């Protein structure tokens, strides 16, 4: 068997496309050779397979964003990543937002469509307030029923399955409201959600790492790897990779207090994340992978460099799998 005949497809590798990179990403000029050569030992020049855009940035009825989206979609296959639907909210999905989301999906026909395992709004003292954030939900039967209903509503509207991203969370619902009990683990919840709603999982490895680091879990990667084994491979439709900024305690008082790592996507993909990615690809071969970098955004070639690293790992995993397959057949 040669590398062309392996049973595992090469992963598509993409990057999150943010405003400051529009010009560079849409430029017809190729990246400078020295940049590519400095990041690629084989001297190969890799392209980005797809880019992810946040759906809400293109909800405006008209104007320059619509034209930009057209140009982006001409240049790259798209992944449309929603952040506004708040599918885990106990309130119903806002029809106007769903319509805008659906219109965008139908117009751009993206490669992937995703949202989050979260809520974002609630009715307080008679008014619906929007946090504009991705807030964690309890993992219980009622939450499951709520999110499954909402996912199905969205899928019916967009006429295709969604991928749902696991969250980085800074609060445990039962700590805030004691009678909000979890009756399953995060991964049990995700699996049940996929089985009931017919959706898939966008596995954010950085979020898993941050949650365990914030919980001060000893040997977090081993814990996560064990959990990943429980996820059926067919459910994982995309992988997100990212880095985070190291939080330095400002004072002794801060050291005493729980110092949280913030999921700021403000650094290169962390070493733990690369390590976990290699493991995850063995579990979920050929999964499209995306590198996110949303704050302290570097120059475009630096982001492309991160994507190239992901591609090298993906290719190495495929090569190893092929070798194992050859060995088992000889």
């Amino acid at each position, binding site marked *: 068997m040669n590398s062309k005949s392996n049973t595992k497809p090469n992963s598509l590798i993409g990057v999150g496309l943010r405003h400051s990179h529009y010009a560079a990403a849409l430029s017809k000029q190729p990246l400078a050779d020295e940049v590519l050569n400095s990041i690629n030992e084989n001297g190969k020049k890799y392209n980005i397979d797809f880019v992810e855009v946040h759906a*809400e940035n293109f909800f405006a009825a*008209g104007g*320059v964003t619509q034209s930009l989206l057209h140009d982006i979609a001409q240049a790259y296959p798209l992944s449309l990543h929603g952040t506004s639907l708040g599918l885990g909210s106990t309130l119903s999905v806002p029809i106007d*937002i769903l319509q805008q989301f659906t219109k965008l999906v139908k117009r751009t026909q993206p490669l992937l469509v995703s949202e989050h395992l979260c809520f974002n709004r609630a009715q307080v003292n008679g008014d619906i307030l*929007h946090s504009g*954030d991705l807030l964690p939900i*309890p993992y219980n039967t*009622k939450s499951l029923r709520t999110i499954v209903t909402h996912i199905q509503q969205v899928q019916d509207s967009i006429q295709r399955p969604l991928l749902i991203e696991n969250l980085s969370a800074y609060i445990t619902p039962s700590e*805030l409201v004691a*009678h909000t009990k979890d009756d399953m683990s995060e991964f049990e919840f995700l699996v049940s959600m996929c089985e009931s709603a017919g959706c898939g999982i966008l596995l954010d490895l950085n979020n898993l790492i941050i949650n365990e680091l914030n919980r001060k879990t000893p040997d977090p990667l081993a814990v996560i790897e064990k959990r990943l084994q429980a996820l059926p491979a067919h459910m994982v439709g995309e992988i997100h990779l990212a880095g985070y900024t190291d939080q330095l305690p400002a004072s002794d008082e801060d050291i005493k207090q729980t110092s949280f790592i913030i999921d700021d996507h403000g650094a290169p993909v962390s070493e733990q994340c690369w390590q976990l990615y290699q493991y995850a690809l063995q579990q979920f071969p050929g999964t499209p992978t995306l590198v996110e970098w949303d704050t302290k955004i570097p120059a475009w070639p630096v982001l492309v460099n991160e994507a190239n690293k992901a591609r090298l790992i993906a290719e190495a995993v495929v090569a190893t799998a092929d070798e194992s397959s050859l060995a088992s057949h000889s």
Partner: protein
Amino acid sequence: MNKSDKPAIHSSGDEENNQVNANQDYQRQLIAKIFNMHPPYSQKQAIETAERIQFDASIQVNIQTGLNVYTNNFIENGIRALSITFPTVEGLIGEDSFRMLSRKLLRHEAKASFDWAEYGITLPTFIEGQEALETYPFLSEVAQLDWAIHDVQRQADKEFAPSTLASLETGDTDLLCFTAAPGLQLLTFWFPVVDLYQLIHDPYLQSEEGILARKELLKNVTESIHNAINIATPRSLVLWRAEYKAQFEYVSDAEADVIQKINAQASVNAVIDTIGTHNIDLVEWLSKAISNKLIFAVA
């Protein structure tokens, strides 16, 4: 996972009702805390919270740390969004004052829409109530212009079809109307908002070569600000979107009257009558309106 171990979406009625209430309570509590509000506690929750505070201080530290992250995210996202919507306001008062103003607005005006781009319409009025900004009497009007520009730039596109103007020759001008540019509107201002906008956004005025021009403009702006309280009526400004960027310019009262008619979807005949009433040269006006893309079509 063993199939029989899988969590099923089935539960008893009471248990499910409890979960519904608990989930709603939790979501309401977290949102309220992010917004620094106090929703009513359910009795059960009040008792349990009191017990936990008494017995487990470490949980309180965890909760507070987590809440701080979410609250900080909310504030920072809000400031970032407002600085995009109100760039001239930020430019005039500086980053630090703008952050302070934004923080105050975020505490005063709840975010009722998911989209940050829709947040901030009340800033012009809010500014009027800020004692600390009394030295910037023009700031509310500048915020109004910023908001209008932001809004116009998000409005639905229209097709520019100058060929349809041929129907002015052949069609019934009592039935035809001018199709206005996206977001065409009239605004009135007492203060020199156009000059203030230019002061912040014109790249030449920020450059070394533009120092003298900037000084001159500053002098004029200062004079106009001082004179603002003595002028009898505010100046009209027309705002529209020709391509992707908002355009705006001062117009005379006569021109403002014509634009008002177009915006009110008056017939071409009624617009032409208004032009005639004000002794405006129709051909010249029409030619300018088309070349500036103030009018997109006739339909």
